[in-house]
């Protein structure tokens, strides 16, 4: 791939001087300066020409990604009224306010638990599901389509459906739990899952896993399908058992897919907002908030402090992603 590309461009470089040669035969007066600047301009042009191709993408990233980051950081050091008027610089005041929020510590701890638990469970389940969907069985096509559903449906809708299903006095899940004898009575504290912070958090993690599963499963399924069948055949000929084959062939060859899927999941789950917002609004108090809903609640009254929370959030994601890449030594894997 790389060889072909450089080959292509180098022949281009060799070719290009040829048509320009006639310019050397131009009248003497003009030949002097143009003869010297010509190649220089051309060289500059050549070195700039990739910019033509990369430029739009760079501009897009600058406008859509980098500029908002600049605005976010700038906002976080301004004193802004709840109606969006800038009242002057706040210096580090917003950060001071943020770090003295009594709820912040809990929010950060919860965010870590939320991200780690959801991603780990998602990946483990996805590995199993991908293996299953890679087998031949009647109805596989339908089953694969069905797997898309939680992914295709709006996350907000899914969250709302779960909230209603968990209604303490008449939710379907509670009615079912009562019918199988796990719940003594409807409308009790026990049935009010979303009212108890810990139970609410566990249920919301369940919903987060539910909506993250399809993507991870498809990513791993795609990875599984790239593993050549001959390898499995050879292993079987050598007398390797199923578990051994899985550990020594499937998992190592699946590693790039696992890394990419995990990374994208970490980012998504860390920033997850609609599930928590629709199911508990981060409450009671802030006891089921992760950093993103917490930032949103702050925004209603304290825009600057909310921006400071965004900056913190942003820093955390970058640190987590870099740590993750370092830990998985992805360079060696992906080369």
């Amino acid at each position, binding site marked *: 791939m790389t060889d072909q590309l450089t080959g292509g461009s180098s022949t281009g470089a060799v070719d290009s001087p040829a048509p320009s040669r006639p310019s050397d035969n131009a009248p003497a007066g003009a030949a002097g300066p143009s003869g010297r600047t010509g190649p220089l301009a051309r060289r500059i042009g050549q070195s700039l020409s990739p910019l033509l191709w990369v430029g739009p993408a760079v501009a897009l990233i600058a406008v859509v990604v980098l500029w908002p980051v600049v605005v976010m950081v700038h906002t976080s050091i301004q004193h802004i009224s709840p109606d969006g008027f800038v009242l002057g610089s706040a210096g580090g005041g917003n950060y001071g306010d943020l770090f003295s929020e009594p709820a912040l510590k809990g929010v950060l701890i919860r965010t870590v638990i939320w991200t780690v638990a959801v991603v780990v469970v998602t990946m483990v389940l996805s590995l199993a599901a991908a293996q299953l969907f890679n087998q031949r069985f009647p109805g596989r096509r339908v089953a694969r389509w069905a797997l898309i559903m939680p992914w295709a449906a709006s996350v907000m809708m899914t969250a709302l459906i779960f909230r209603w299903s968990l209604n*303490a006095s008449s939710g379907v899940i509670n009615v079912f739990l009562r019918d199988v004898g796990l719940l003594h009575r409807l409308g009790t504290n026990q049935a009010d899952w979303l*009212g108890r912070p810990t139970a609410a958090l566990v249920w919301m993690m369940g919903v987060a896993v539910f909506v993250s599963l399809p993507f991870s499963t498809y990513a791993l399924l795609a990875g599984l399908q790239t593993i050549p069948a001959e390898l499995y055949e050879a292993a079987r000929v050598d007398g390797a058992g199923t578990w051994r084959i899985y550990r020594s062939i499937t998992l190592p060859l699946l590693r790039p897919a696992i890394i990419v899927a995990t990374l994208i999941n970490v980012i998504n789950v860390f920033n997850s907002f609609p599930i928590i917002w629709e199911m508990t609004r981060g409450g009671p*108090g*802030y006891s089921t908030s992760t950093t993103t809903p917490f930032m949103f609640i702050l925004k209603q009254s304290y825009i600057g402090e909310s921006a400071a929370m965004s900056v913190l959030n942003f820093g955390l994601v970058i640190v987590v992603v870099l740590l993750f890449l370092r830990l998985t030594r992805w360079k060696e894997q992906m080369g």
Partner: protein
Amino acid sequence: MRRSLIGAAAVAAVGSLVLSGCGGSSGGGGGSSKGASGGAATLKLVVADYGTGPQNTSSKYWKGIISAFHTKNPSISVNVTAINWNDFDNQVQTLIQNHQYPDITEGDYFQNYAQEGLLYSAQDALSKPGNLLQAFKAQGSYKGTQYGMPFTTSSRTLFYNKKLFQQAGISSPPQTWADIKADAAKITKLGKVGYGLPLGPEEAQAETLLWFLGNNGGYQTSSGKWEINSPQNVQTMQFLQSLVKAGLTEPHPGTKNRTDLWQDFAAGKIGMINGSPALIPIMQKAGVLKTSDWASVSIPGKSGPLSTTLGVCDNVAAFKPNGHQAQIKKFLDFAYQDKYQLQFDKEYDLLPATTSAAKALSSDPIFAPFLKALPNARQYPSDTVWANVKSQLQHTVGTAITGNPKSVLDTLQQTAEKGA
């Protein structure tokens, strides 16, 4: 290849962050067109939705007014957006923070907008501002000028389920906190919720104030001093705590919203709940409770029924930044006609906000008692920091039930004293 991947990963990380950061403001519409004063223009009207479903959504009510208005004033068009109460404050606040100003809002109104100079005064936005109910003038005023124009009003009473009271062998409606506790205990024994206590984010500020009033407390003293963490208020929260601990309310009141609990009351699952006339159509729609199955009485206080109740008015605010004063005035004069006031009140069982419309209703058997209670009703603080206090209170006051009431109220008091 390698480098591009780490780049891509970084871009993906940044991109998804930024996208999620923008999510909150996606509700904003485009800015409205600027027109010369008095000329053609399109007004952007943002209203709270009082309806219980698509068949009686508020945008239907407003569209009726708009089309009648447009026939008479073909050069002015009005676009209406109805937002449900749960999201109204948040979405309007976001529009304003992003400087995508509406021309008119109807729903909650905050003094901050007047403080920032964003609003036309009632004088500038209406031909007859004197027709607005005087009782609500102070609440909509900033430094002596009225900016918040009441559009609809309501007062709160205690609704109770007569059927459940009968089954539980209770002969008369509650008058004191002790009555509420005793009656709720009897109803709980029937397997129903004794008292519905909505302290979730939707409207915790109303339920909290109604209880504070019962113990001679409130958010502010009559001289405008904040008293959220006063000893009476702490005592009130302790009483609520005892109510919840005894299992006499729905589970975890700090996470339950008014709309959901009103639905539960309408479904016959709750014995008592504080409500406004707007609860009536919800009961009619649910079809479980007949008119003879429920009644409403003055809200019980610690030692007797409240002599004042919470009077709530939802306000119209007219925004300056788009420069549509003449058009706004034309439209508001049209919309404030008595027939539209009465249509609104009939549709949603709420009370009028103009003197002339109130007169027209003064002999109505359902509305008259509520109207009579309005003039001496207590109202929310008219203070610019109220927006901050309210939003924090909505999210945290429920934790006073499970945690330490004093410290929760202390934190709110600090926010109030810090100022806007």
